[in-house]
């Protein structure tokens, strides 16, 4: 039997809410899928849109972006700025043909350990079903003669 | 089968010396000893040093060809490649392509006095030729080195400067820009062109080798002219941006000259024939 495909998930999370939330998941001993690699950034405002593209081009099959709920930003408005950016970037991703089912956005507070586990599980399951995301990685070889 | 001219030698960093803020010297040994034995270069030549993953950067070979078994390079942390190089440790591997370019004509200088004028981070290209000349001391008559930097901390090769200062077969004049001195500074204070003017070396039977930031060169050349140096007796070395070092990529092209092939060493007479695109 062929080995089951295990997706590589990359999560870009803010330091103050989602990272703390993910920490809580662990300390609460909630089990969730281990496919995710968490990259901690100070704030969702710091999550450059190109990081999502970079994650895909370097081999991620799915990306999670998560930060503080609106009004909860440690820096007051970083997540509001991020939200605007995602609203535009997400549409653009779709427009250039990137499968949006592979990109998950969420707000997860420091108290929502269970939500983090559920989000990772859901996103990972969805990507597992979609299979490896070869299309983007293959692009890097197209054009080198 | 012809060689892949873009394939670098692999070099191991044998030693690292911090010269000045942001300025380091690597002593490099060939990872493949056989390549090292076959490797030859002449003073004035340069190479392309690569930090794998970041790219290649051009600097001169700062050691003398008379010192076998290794090469040295000195660089200032400025861009993508040099910052990556600056992060390397002893034992790390970097790439090196070379030697490329023309050479200082030591044979032609036999029996002459030499005066070296250098500023700041431009001593490394001259260091190679200074050591080369010192190692062939009886070829030349008087050897003088004038070296200046912005401040005492910015002087590179501090230990060697000390050693040169103690030698009686050469004269070393160090200077720092006004305000750059420290209480225990025993050298001169003033800009290099001015110090050269004070020193007033005789132009008769003398070759001047000048290397430094553009402004220093610009102001030193008239001083040398006034002292009577002919345009064929003043040498300098250019550092245009390069990608290949092989006379192909076109970056260093200035006038009909490819700095990587026809240079980097130019006499003032040759330089004046080029457009000022360097």
């Amino acid at each position, binding site marked *: 039997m062929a080995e089951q495909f295990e997706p590589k998930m990359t999560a870009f999370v803010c330091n103050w809410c989602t990272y703390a939330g993910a920490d809580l998941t662990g300390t609460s001993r909630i089990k969730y899928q281990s496919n995710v690699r968490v990259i901690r950034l100070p704030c969702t405002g710091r999550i450059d849109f190109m990081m999502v593209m970079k994650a895909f081009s370097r081999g991620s099959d799915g990306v999670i972006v998560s930060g503080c709920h609106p009004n909860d930003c440690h820096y007051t408005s970083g997540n509001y700025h991020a939200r605007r950016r995602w609203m535009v970037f997400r549409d653009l991703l779709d427009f250039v043909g990137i499968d949006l089912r592979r990109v998950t956005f969420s707000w997860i507070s420091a108290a929502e350990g269970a939500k983090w586990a559920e989000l990772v599980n859901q996103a990972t399951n969805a990507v597992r079903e979609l299979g490896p995301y070869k299309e983007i990685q293959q692009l890097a070889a197209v054009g080198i003669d | 089968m012809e060689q892949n001219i873009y*394939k670098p030698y692999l070099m191991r960093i044998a030693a690292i010396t911090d010269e000045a803020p942001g300025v380091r010297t690597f002593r490099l040994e060939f990872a493949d000893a056989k390549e090292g034995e076959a490797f030859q270069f002449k003073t004035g030549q340069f190479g392309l040093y690569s930090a794998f993953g970041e*790219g290649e950067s051009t600097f001169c070979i700062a050691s003398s060809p008379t010192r076998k078994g290794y090469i040295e390079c000195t660089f200032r942390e400025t861009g993508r490649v040099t910052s990556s190089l600056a992060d390397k440790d002893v034992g790390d591997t970097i790439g090196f392509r070379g030697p490329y370019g023309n050479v200082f004509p030591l044979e032609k200088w036999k029996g002459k006095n030499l005066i070296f004028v250098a500023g700041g981070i431009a001593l490394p290209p001259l260091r190679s030729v200074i050591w080369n000349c010192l190692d062939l001391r009886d070829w030349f008559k008087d050897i003088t080195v004038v070296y200046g930097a912005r401040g005492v901390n910015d002087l590179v090769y501090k230990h060697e400067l000390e050693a040169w200062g103690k030698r009686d077969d050469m004269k070393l004049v160090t200077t720092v820009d006004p305000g750059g001195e420290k209480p225990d500074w025993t050298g001169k204070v003033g800009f290099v062109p001015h110090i050269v003017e004070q020193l007033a070396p005789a132009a008769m039977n003398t070759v001047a080798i000048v290397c430094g930031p553009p402004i220093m060169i610009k102001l030193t050349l008239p001083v040398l002219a006034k002292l009577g140096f002919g345009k064929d007796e003043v040498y300098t070395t250019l550092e245009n941006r390069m990608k290949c070092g092989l*006379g192909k990529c*076109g970056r260093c092209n200035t*006038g009909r000259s490819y700095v990587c092939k026809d240079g980097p060493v130019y006499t003032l007479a040759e330089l004046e024939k080029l457009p000022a695109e360097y």
Partner: protein
Amino acid sequence: MSEKYTVSEVGFSSLVDAMVKTEMRVLGPREGAEGIEIAELKSAAEIAKEGQSIVSAKGTVFPKVERLVKYRYEGKNVALDDVQPNAVPTVLFGARPCEARAFHALDVVFNWDYKDIFFNTRLANTTVVAISCTQADDACFCTSVGSRPDDSAGSDILLSRLKSGGYVAEVLTDKGKALMALAKDALQPPPVSPDLVPAATVAPVFDAKALEQKLASKFDSPLWLEQSLRCLGCGACAYVCPTCVCFSIEDEADTRQGDRLRTWDSCGLRLFTSHASGHNPRDKQSQRWRQRVYHKFAYYPDRFKTIGCVGCGKCSRACPVDMNLKQHLTEAAR
């Protein structure tokens, strides 16, 4: 050596079909939605026999991105993997004579001192079949740079159209001969006085030698600023040019391995000569425009005894602000 044959239209098609069936990569001008492109050909019907492609056929021997070095990290060590030059047998079929001629201008740079095996291997494995131009446009000026619309220089086979249909094939090299062997049946002896479709008329507008001499004294002329005011400083001209040879070398790597890639570059781009320190020897667009002109029309002839331009006019057609090289050179040659 030069042998002449007649090839009928049918013979022409069967030659292309025969080539396509081999291992060879058959490249040539093809009519695309947005103009002629150099692409892999499948049949003779696809070939655009007239008009200039947008991007030149330079990529056949000097591709826009090519791997020079490949490496892997092994702890503190680095291992270099051997990169073999691409030696796929290739036919550039149906190109314009200027494209064929342009390979020489690349050759002189890739071989004047150090030998570039990447270029040389590709060139050695490429057979060039050109078709004489019977049409030209306002941007063409091959006759001003020592060429003509039916120039055979650089071609292994030159095809010239017959009024009655079919071609006269002038087989110029052994490579050409070998290719023709693929379609022996298609070859007939040439007519005694071939009734060729006349080659395109391209009136000479300047004398290249005179231009070179003029340039010697025009370096500081205000002309360059005047001409380049509208220049946007992009690299379109260089990237479509069949003779522009300047390149960059760029590393692309992840944490385990990397490639050192050669990519096309352009002297018109500000970053071309810019140092990491911020110093830029050619800081102004006018200086960069002048470099482009001088490199091709003064430094090249001086250094490599050939002009770095074949007069194809691709740069002028590609320019978003209509920098017409022919016109600018005519001004400079005055």
